[in-house]
């Protein structure tokens, strides 16, 4: 049954038609909105590559039916900032060069955005704990930790 779903993505309201209301938000964001920040990593809620913010909470968009996101504020990596005007977390990732392939980085940044909104001065151990369900195969963890710490201190200062 085709259904219309009203979504608010990165501040703009848009209605999309999905054939199956169970269609995960991930595919709607990527294929209908051309928002490539969220990535398909597992489709199982295990890796975090697809993470977006839903009403400020980090959610796995691969496992969230689009219909359930209706009426809620969705923020993707693109909604945080741009190459010209990056969000402080994105800026910190650039400063620390906290990327190898970068496929996991969407999840790292979105998870950190939700986390840093609640914990403004985290210890390294708290960051490790906050990111423990986000996987990275390239082993960029050391830099990601440094970037999130840098972002926390930059945002605290800002």
């Amino acid at each position, binding site marked *: 049954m085709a259904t219309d779903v009203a979504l608010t993505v990165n501040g703009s309201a848009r209605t*999309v038609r999905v054939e199956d209301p169970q269609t995960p938000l991930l595919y709607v964001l990527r294929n209908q909105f051309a928002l*490539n920040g969220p*990535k398909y990593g597992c489709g199982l809620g295990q890796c975090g590559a697809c993470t977006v913010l839903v009403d400020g909470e980090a959610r796995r968009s691969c496992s969230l039916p689009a219909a359930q996101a209706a009426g809620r504020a969705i923020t993707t990596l693109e909604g945080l900032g741009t*190459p010209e005007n990056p969000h402080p977390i*994105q800026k910190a990732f650039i400063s620390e060069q906290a*990327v190898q392939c970068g496929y996991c980085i969407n999840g790292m940044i979105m998870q950190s955005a939700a986390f840093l909104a609640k914990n403004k001065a985290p210890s390294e151990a708290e960051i490790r704990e906050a*990111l423990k369900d986000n996987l990275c195969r390239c*082993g960029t963890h*050391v830099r990601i930790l440094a970037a999130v710490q840098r972002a926390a201190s930059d945002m605290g200062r800002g």
Partner: protein
Amino acid sequence: MDGTPGTLPRRGLLAAGAALVVAFSLRNEAEAQEKPVPTSGPRPVPLGRAESFLAFHRDGRVEVFTGKVDLGTGIRIAIMQMVADELDLPLSRVSLIEGDTDLTPDQGPTWGSLSIQVAGAAIRQAAATARHHLLARASAHLGVPAANLIVLDGNVHPRVGGASVSFAELLGDAPLALAVDREAPRKRAADYQVVGKSIPRPDVPGKVTGTHTYMQDLRLPGMIHARIVFPPAVGARLVSLDEGSVRGIPGVLRVLRRESFIAILAEDEWAAIRGHDTLRAEWTRWEGLPEQAKLYETLRAGPFAKTDTAGAKGDAAAALGTSARRFEATYDFAMQSHASMGPSCAVAQWDGRRMTVWSATQATHWTRLEVARMLGLEQPQVRVLYLDGAGCYGRNGHEDAAAQAALIAHILAGTELAGRPIRVQWMRADEHGWDPKGPPTLIALKAGLDASGNIAAWSSEYWIPQTTELAPIENLALSFAGIAQKTVINPGNIHNNAVPGYEIPNHLATLHRLTEPPLRASWIRSPGRMQNAYAIEAFMDELAHAAGADPVAYRLRHLKDERGAAVLRAAAEKAGWREGQAAQGPKDDAILRGRGVAYARYEARTYIACVAEVEVERASGKIRVTRCVVGHDCGQVINPDGLANQIEGQVVQTVSRTLIEEVTFDRSRVTSLDWASYPILTFPDVPKVEIASIERQDEPPWGAGEMAAVVIPPAVSNAVFDATGVRMRSIPYTPEKVRAALAGRA
């Protein structure tokens, strides 16, 4: 549907006046990949020509063309740095095109950490040739001897001032046409401006803001989403298919079948996935895999394609017989998966004459050859273009996905779907289940010590898959579709580093090359070298212990290579290693602590050493690696931060491989099909990484992408021994194995 599904905003991204495919950093790569042909016509690609690697433009920009690709390793910026310095150009005027079989020379697959050492060096020599040539032309043009000319920002000036001329003016309308001169003088290291500096990577801002186009993000107009229905067992063949089972799913276009190859084609990605999950099919039973519990016995039993020698000196057997003390040990290293974060993906389009394939393959040219052979096409009829994927650490599923997409596009010719781009995207279980694996390795070692504890004899036996030239990696597109394999990609020189890098008067390394590995085998970062060095360096530790010597001092006693010794010393010093200190941590606590060291020279190239510190939880058996100090000498360092990024990544990834990772399987198929059944290291367990890098800017650059990995497993292993007094010899060191080992000791 809401408009055209997710087409990228293309036209708007074209920078005004950018006539050519250009700067990696300045444009959307999908755009670049979609309209990649320079206005100057087809590119020359012979390896001996400077114009194959370099294009000088009238506006002063220089494009670099390389067959190597940046798999997240930072070679993109490093090669640009090398060219900028060699040509005295600002980095902002240098851009890079990589991995496009129409445009870039075939510099071989991006493997073996050779991108800088070999491909970068070739490009650097082409740039030196061009510079030398342009200086000669400037000398004639300006009437000033070349020795009295300098280059600033692409302009040639007399040293004493006066009229200048630009590279672009010198070339005029005639493009560069020049054989690479191997003797053309290169810049001296002291004159480098950007080589040796940590220039940030151009792809990072796009990657952290969602604007970088990955392979998985490529969407072309009219593109069809495909999912492959993989067999339920490795060798199962399709008996029958119930197409009706997916008929009710809106968006499914058709079920395509060729022998046992099944693809669900759909307008919409979710429809393809639903079709994939819903399709009913009947397969033959197949149970041809060995019993996992007896895997290493299976390796030992063969059959073998050949048994040969990797290296020999003196008479190892005789010297073993006369040694004062003899030791032996057997090590094994588990079968592992690349486990890339993003499952393999490819897009292919057949226009009736040419096949265009977009792929994150590390081997664009080989993939072209495989696709051409599969379809009975000439190679020029196939174009393979690289787009970044999730990190791949060797030959994973990209080449299969590329061939699958091409096969579908080709089969559809003449149907109503002809000409539409086909996107094949593997599911997570496909990737974990079907990527070719790092093969399980069994290594048996023997050594004899003389009266003073020095190694008098060493003999080693390796049970490994067939390697180079013997056994290509089968491509799944062909095996499923019942097409005879015509593949060219083989698992590489996994017997390298089979000989210990120490002064040993008598040694022998024997290779038992299996006719067939249990599952498709390929190379995963530091293939063979890691497994071999693990066994050698762990055994070395056993010998040091037996000789009552400090492990660092014992290695130095057997090491005559000064650069190697310097790296080992540097790591030990940075780690605060003191001879004889804390040989074994306190053992009655809940947490046992230890440190271990390992050293190797990767082939005849980069030197590496590692001091690892571990904590072992006695009750649970869990090992935590808390700190790794890596000594590293890869000669000239092009981009120190890029080097550090690679080393850090290798430490984390290899600690994961050492402690956790093992592919599981039953008699039919792989059973570790997701991140729960094939876990990798996560943030709470990531060690601190410190690096003692010895930069030798006057030396040639060697590789750094997979060298540090080889010393991590033995350093961790030796630290575990130091902590527990128990020698573990089977990777991964899971808590169960640790508990069993501790119980055995008690």
